[in-house]
């Protein structure tokens, strides 16, 4: 599997590490216990298109948000995660 880093170009998987699901959003400070439990512990086990965070630690050290199909490993989009490459995502 290879990932096309938006900054470095196509690189081997070994340069990247997987963080996890990019879908969960931290609940507001006053959220219920159930919502926090869901955010911290519960994950979907998707067979198909997922949204994930990957870290290009062996290269430009940028966090990436990647759309990947768990059935085929096909990657349909790679973009810098919010805050990465400060100027380019306008964070």
């Amino acid at each position, binding site marked *: 599997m290879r990932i096309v880093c938006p900054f470095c170009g196509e690189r081997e998987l*070994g340069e990247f590490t997987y963080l996890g699901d990019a879908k969960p959003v931290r609940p507001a400070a006053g959220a219920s216990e159930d919502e926090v439990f869901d955010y911290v512990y519960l994950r979907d086990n998707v067979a198909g298109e997922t949204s994930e965070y990957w870290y290009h630690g*062996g290269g430009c050290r940028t966090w990436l948000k990647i759309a990947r199909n768990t059935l085929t490993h096909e990657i349909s989009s790679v973009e810098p995660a919010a805050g990465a490459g*400060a*100027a380019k995502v306008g964070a």
Partner: protein
Amino acid sequence: MAEFSWVSRSPLEHALAPGAHGARGVEAGVSLTEIRNFDLIQVMARRGKAAELARVANGRFGVATPNAPTVVQAQDATLIWSGPDQFFVLSKGGKHTMDTLAPALSGPASLSDQSHARALVRISGARARTMLAKLSSIDLHPSAFPIGAAAATSIDHTSVTLWRGGDRPDGQAVFNLLVFSTFAGSLWHTMLDAAAEYGVTIAHSEELA
């Protein structure tokens, strides 16, 4: 308080044995030269200040800073892309140090002195590309990695900054490699092993290419 005398030494001082290594009776295919005593400053744009940094650095160095994986040669420094909105300033002789760069660049950027945190190795020779191909997954063919190309990548699970300098007078390509000091010895031995079958000429130098 105890008094210390700090003497900067190369991280490859013990590993590097100048002379010939590997295959004998052939013209050495790979030349490995450690470059010692350089000034290396990492410059990283503060959030939202990339455009300002580019403007200020352009005024300082007289060239546009790299905004893609490339190196840019200024009059007395090499600017090496190291990630989005960040680059290294490589120079010799105290021309660009924290003392001289910080007043100009510390507004839009964070600066960090890496002079003693990296080892710099120059790799050239007829089989240099073949040797590197054993270790790197980067396409180093001249059409994909021309003079001035740079890459933040990993070799032997070690983060390195790799770029192609100007060719040698005999036309051979020159690859420059910055690696963390504490990993330099390990990577050095890996490169020696990879290059041994081609014959290696080992040296160290004070001169930036």
